[in-house]
């Protein structure tokens, strides 16, 4: 039981500080990055804090190198993270694919700003969500978390590390500039409420070790470089020994295994929040700062007697498809507010498949969507 009689520790942090502090609790001991607004405070904080806990901070020459550095550090056994924004996320894509292919656990934070290109460096966007899903080539598993409140930014950052370690794959934390830069009260969890997961290490001696040995399941145990276990890593399709192969059957089964690590564990990975959903007629589906606007709009609509409710994914990828399909069958309409020109909309539209009308609210001027704008759409549905 949680210590309900004890008071929670309360912090006053920015979203970016919250990610940095939570990463340390999760066990992050290596960060490499290149400064970019609006994510730079994550690097600032960790440049001071990591050395205090025996970790390493590296400011790299560019975004690509920063991604490469955390992959290398991950192979030595460290929990690792980098942080960036849209332009840097674009540059990192090739190495993100490499990390997925060699199954290197890592956490990549994208504090989303307006785009495309350098766009609006100091203002919000939510327009990198499809890039997170499809940004690097090939079929690979994608996990992306989208917390909206800073309490949740804290717990979801820890969860991002846990998922990366558990499934040996890159995990994205996508927050928008509003969440990254706002300072807010953060009620910290008690220690016994925090679960920390570490990657499984090999139980076999070095001479019997293979880096992609699936004897124990779809996630192979991972040895640390420089610990006596010698192994090869390549972005090419590879066999269980880590060496290149073009064997069609093996390439097929290994790529399927990569995808299965996530697809077979949706129950573990997907999280969402439902508000006022029991008798819902008008459903809002939103994440991040848009969801915080929607929360107010829904409360206001309810006070006017309108049966509005919200479905808010905390895990954006893999998307909670089953839940949204089910809801689509019993509501009058769905509203999708987002700070982009309709990216989440594509996903919702695909899942709803004509079962109910969908309205979009899309803003890309750098100003968040306000509760009144969502309420106005709820009222006229």
């Amino acid at each position: 039981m949680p210590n309900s009689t004890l008071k929670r520790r309360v912090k006053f942090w920015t979203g970016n500080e919250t990610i940095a502090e939570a990463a340390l609790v999760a066990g992050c001991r290596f960060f490499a990055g290149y400064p970019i607004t609006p994510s730079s405070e994550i690097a600032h904080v960790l440049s001071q804090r990591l050395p205090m806990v025996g970790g390493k901070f590296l400011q790299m020459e560019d975004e690509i190198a920063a991604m490469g550095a955390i992959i290398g550090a991950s192979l030595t056994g460290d929990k690792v993270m980098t942080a960036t924004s849209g332009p840097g996320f674009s540059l990192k894509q090739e190495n993100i694919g490499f990390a997925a292919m060699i199954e290197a656990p890592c956490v990549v934070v994208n504090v989303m700003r307006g785009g495309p290109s350098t766009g609006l460096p100091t203002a919000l966007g939510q327009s990198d969500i499809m890039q997170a899903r499809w940004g690097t080539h090939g079929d690979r598993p994608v996990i992306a978390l989208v917390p909206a409140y800073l309490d949740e930014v804290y717990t979801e950052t820890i969860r991002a590390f846990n998922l990366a370690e558990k499934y040996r794959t890159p995990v994205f934390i996508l927050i928008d500039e509003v969440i990254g830069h706002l300072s807010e009260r953060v009620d910290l969890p008690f220690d016994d409420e925090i679960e920390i997961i570490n990657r499984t290490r090999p139980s076999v001696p070095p001479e019997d070790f293979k880096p992609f040995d699936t004897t124990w399941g779809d996630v192979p145990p991972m040895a640390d470089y420089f610990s006596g276990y010698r192994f090869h890593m390549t972005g090419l399709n590879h066999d269980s020994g880590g060496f290149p192969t073009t064997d069609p059957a093996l390439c097929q089964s290994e790529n399927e295994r990569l995808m299965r690590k996530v697809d077979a564990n949706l129950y573990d990975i997907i999280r969402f929040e439902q508000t006022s959903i029991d008798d819902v007629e008008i459903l809002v589906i939103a994440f991040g700062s848009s969801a915080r606007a929607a929360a107010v709009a829904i409360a206001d609509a309810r006070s006017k007697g309108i049966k509005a409710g919200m479905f808010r994914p905390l895990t954006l990828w893999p998307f909670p498809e089953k839940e949204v399909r089910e809801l689509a069958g019993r509501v009058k309409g769905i509203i999708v507010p987002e700070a982009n020109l309709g990216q989440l909309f594509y996903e919702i539209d695909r899942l709803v498949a004509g079962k109910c009308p969908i309205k979009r609210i899309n803003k890309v001027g750098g100003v968040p969507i306000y509760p009144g704008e969502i309420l106005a759409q709820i009222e006229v549905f």
Partner: protein
Amino acid sequence: MTGHFEARFAAVGGQGILLAGDILAEAAINFENLYALDSPTYTAQVRGGPTKVDVIIDKSRILFPRTTAIDFMLCLAQRSWDKFGYDLKPGCILLIDPFLVQQVDEVNNKVYRMPIIEITKNEMKKMVYTSAVALGAMIGLTEALNVDSVLKALMKKAPKGTEEQNQKAFSVGYDAAKVLLKS
């Protein structure tokens, strides 16, 4: 404080006003056990660009992190008013520096004029105390939080060795506000 309070501090980058928002929110959270947040807006030109920080204080968890009905606004530059003079609640307490801000909406707001920059220059000799003076003036006009709570938060944020001067700056602003209220 009633259940919900919103404040906006608007200036140009470099005047140090974003810090005032941080201190106010921290005072509410740490010393009055309320919920609070602050949300800054600035441009890529950090110095000289219009900048603001919005603070929301509430008795319960705050959902939307931007202001929608502002109770108090401080404005230290005309173009900050031009850019950020929206979302004010009717009857909003609007504090302006008359040397820097000439034209505001005087019909829907209660406008108070205080030469904050001049006061800081004359009383404190250093412009870094602008935010502490402004914060004192804001609390003097609104009593949104207890003076003690704000002072404690200010002491926590103040660099070592400047505590006394910051406290003095706060009092200068606070007292000037009380004079304004009487006049």
